């Protein structure tokens, strides 16, 4: 549920310059060595602890999936900007970095089935006028909107009209704000979610929009003191269709292996267990 591709920047540049190095499809099966890239800065999905180790939901899930596929995996850290071009160029084989499955990304890479799905939610400080804001429906899917959902969406737009809303740059959340509140609200974009949190706490923005998977653990911790989630949880449309593993288009066999392993992990409840452990609620895909 995060950033659209800043990354695509580089992709576009490569494509246009016509110098993309295409790694040809490899053979995949039991015993393969697979390199998985993650960002290492998007807790609790994936982050770096103060000892410098990669940890998080996706790191644990990757270990589980690799065991199921009977392959050897190495999880490496890669900056978000550039994570897709480096996949295409063959630096690693899979991306598991809280990356939402969106049409735009599907133009350049393929995705396994979704392994997590978390709605986007607004957060404000408890002292804010919007602190009690609620809509009649809790979950809002931005595809095939029915009447009740339309009312809720209108309420969201009305609530944040004229406000300043912060969001991390190049994310699906930014896309949503530009599409639905671009004319009515002031949108401030931040390099990192953490800088946005600082400004929300400081009162420089009225509200922040990000994934529930990010908010729930944060709000439960000390750092989330004085912040509260408001309005409906939103999915679909600009937010994409869940979070999946990004894989090169030509590696169809690898994609199938991941999809199968994810299905198995969902079926026996492992992914749910990991999700509850890291997010504090079941953010796994169904």
């Amino acid at each position: 549920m995060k950033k659209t591709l800043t990354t695509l920047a580089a992709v576009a540049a490569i494509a246009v310059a016509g110098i993309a190095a295409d790694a040809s499809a490899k053979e995949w099966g039991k015993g393969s060595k697979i390199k998985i890239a993650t960002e290492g800065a998007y807790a609790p999905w994936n982050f770096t602890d103060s000892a410098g180790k990669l940890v998080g939901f996706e790191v644990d899930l990757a270990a589980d999936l690799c065991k199921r596929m009977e392959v050897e995996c190495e999880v490496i850290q890669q900056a978000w900007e550039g994570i897709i071009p480096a996949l295409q160029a063959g630096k690693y084989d899979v991306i598991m970095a809280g990356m939402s499955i969106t049409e735009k990304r599907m133009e350049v890479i393929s995705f396994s089935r979704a392994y997590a799905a978390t709605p986007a939610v607004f957060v404000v400080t408890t002292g804010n006028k919007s602190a009690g804001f609620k809509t009649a429906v809790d979950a809002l899917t931005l595809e095939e909107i029915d009447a009740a959902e339309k009312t809720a969406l209108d309420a969201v737009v009305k609530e944040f009209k004229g406000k300043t809303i912060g969001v991390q740059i190049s994310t699906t959340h930014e896309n949503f704000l530009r599409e639905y509140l671009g004319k009515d609200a002031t949108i401030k974009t931040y390099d990192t979610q953490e800088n946005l949190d600082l400004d929300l706490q400081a009162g420089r923005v009225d509200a922040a929009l990000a994934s529930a998977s990010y908010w729930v653990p944060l709000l439960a911790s000390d750092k989330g003191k004085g912040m509260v989630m408001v309005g409906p949880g939103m999915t679909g449309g600009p937010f994409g269709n869940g979070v999946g593993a990004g894989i090169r288009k030509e590696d169809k066999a690898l994609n199938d292996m991941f999809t199968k392993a994810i299905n198995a992990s969902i079926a026996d409840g492992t992914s749910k267990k990991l999700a509850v452990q890291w997010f504090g609620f079941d953010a796994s895909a169904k």
Partner: protein
Amino acid sequence: MSEWISLLTWGDAGWGDEMVRGALWTLLLATVAFVLGVVIGSLGAGAKLSYLPPLRWLGQGYTTVIRGVPDLLVIYLLFFGGNQAVMAIARSLFGYDGYIELNAFTIGAIALGTVSGAYSTEVIRGAVLAVPAGQIEAARACGMSGWLLFRRILVPQVARYALPGLGNVWQLTLKDTSLISIVGLVEIMRSASIASGSTQKPFVFYVSAACLYLVLTAGSNRAFGLAELWANRGVRRV
């Protein structure tokens, strides 16, 4: 105050070691970039002083563009365009079509080297012009070849004249390393940013970052002072 100390302790609990490690990266990056800059600067000065007009234009164009464009933009451009450029060169020159990744450090060093190279060019050019023309003529009259003249007459004096200016370029490069945090190298600024995000105590960590930079600039200031003394050891003092 005790809160500061606990935030900045060594080890897994505190951020002291991360900050100091960041400082070492800053120092290493600045050093590599500075040396690269001096190399580029020497070539640039040579180009600008050349009797071949195209070389002069090239040198002039380089310094004008770099000195007229924010360093941040130069870094963005190299960060986004650097990898592709290197891969394109590797492919066309060596027929190599595998993946080449320039890591944040390499890109940072190239970017900062390009920036500091422009300033070094001006400093070195000024230093070359400061060598009295009579000395060159005298060396020629003594029958020195071009290379000998360059080595014995030009280089020692240019180094001495250029030292104060290069000291300034070093300071500039050292401070510019903070911009590389934006492309992800975990130097001082990035460490401070990660730590303040993680603890929500930005003030503590940015003040610590400022102190680390002060230590680095003060220390290197002294080193350049000593180097100047050394370089001027044979010069009569008034």
